[in-house]
């Protein structure tokens, strides 16, 4: 089952990368989030699945659309100078390109590719050290002050014994209580992001002489 979902995910990811039309790519990314949420639900990570549903499929699609309104819908062909594959069309466009534009784009793409490859190799190198999914002797699970404590001490029991925090959903206890500082930081980060957008994109307020708010 996971294999099927993963195959769908890979297909969607490839489609999103290949599409030149950013609008279509946004739609595809929405579908990607949908399938990702199914995968999370399949792995019983309900809170993550919920967040993926609400943020990945909903708001981020809407925000990407809003961004596309600003930057235009097509990826320009100059940014897509092929790395390995050369077709006649791109060859022609490279001849037409005066100066070293295409070469420059090629260089940029190559360095981007190299950076991605480097990170990918690093991540792949790290994978063998990780415990298998759901392993019972994973370090985070065995450590008495991490998962063991959250799982056994935080919720209130049904027989009336009080836990350290209370809620049945341990994730809420971790986010709000054990890791309360981190969550506060996250909230401030969201606030900061919105603040930056306001500072960058909002036009300077006009004088009141015209018709009130400058839209």
């Amino acid at each position, binding site marked *: *089952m996971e294999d*099927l*979902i993963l*195959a*769908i995910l890979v*297909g*969607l990811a*490839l*489609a999103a990368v290949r599409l030149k*039309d950013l*609008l*279509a790519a*946004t*739609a*595809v990314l*929405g*579908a990607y989030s*949908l*399938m990702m*949420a*199914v995968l999370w*639900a*399949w792995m*019983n990570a*309900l809170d993550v*699945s*919920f967040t993926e*549903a*609400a943020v990945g*499929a*909903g708001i981020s*699609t*809407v925000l990407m*659309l809003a961004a*596309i*309104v600003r930057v*235009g*819908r*097509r990826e320009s062909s100059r940014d897509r100078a092929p790395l390995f594959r050369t077709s006649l069309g791109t060859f022609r466009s490279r001849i037409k390109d005066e100066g070293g534009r295409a070469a420059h784009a090629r260089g940029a793409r190559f360095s981007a590719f190299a950076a991605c490859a480097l990170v990918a190799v690093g991540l792949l190198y790290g994978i063998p050290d990780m415990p298998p999914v759901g392993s019972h002797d994973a370090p985070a699970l065995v450590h008495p002050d991490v998962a063991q404590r959250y799982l056994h001490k935080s919720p209130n029991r049904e027989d009336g014994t009080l836990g350290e925090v209370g809620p049945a959903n341990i994730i809420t206890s971790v986010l709000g209580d054990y890791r309360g500082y981190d969550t506060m930081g996250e909230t401030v980060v969201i606030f900061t992001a919105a603040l930056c957008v306001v500072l960058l994109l909002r036009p300077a307020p006009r004088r009141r002489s015209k018709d009130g708010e400058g839209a």
Partner: protein
Amino acid sequence: MNHVYIAATVTVLFGVLVVLRRVILGPTVHDRILAVNVIGTKTIVLLALVGFLYGRPGFFLDIALAYALINFIATIAVLRYMERRAALRSRGAANLAEEDDQ
């Protein structure tokens, strides 16, 4: 009953795989949005099925409900964007017009 759930899940996932071809092939953006919308509906059913399979459907249905709402909003957002583009083009707004040509 679990066999039924698993069979239905695999069937619906296979349906997603079929629709996926439409997402990748296109040809128009509307085809892709349509296919994504279909995948969204299938996702709702998938979540419900997985919930019943795991024997605690309540929580999974919360997510499915959120999906039903969110999927609609995302679809409408894309469509409104496209209608807006078309309207802008018909009014001859120069700043956006030329980008839409293939």
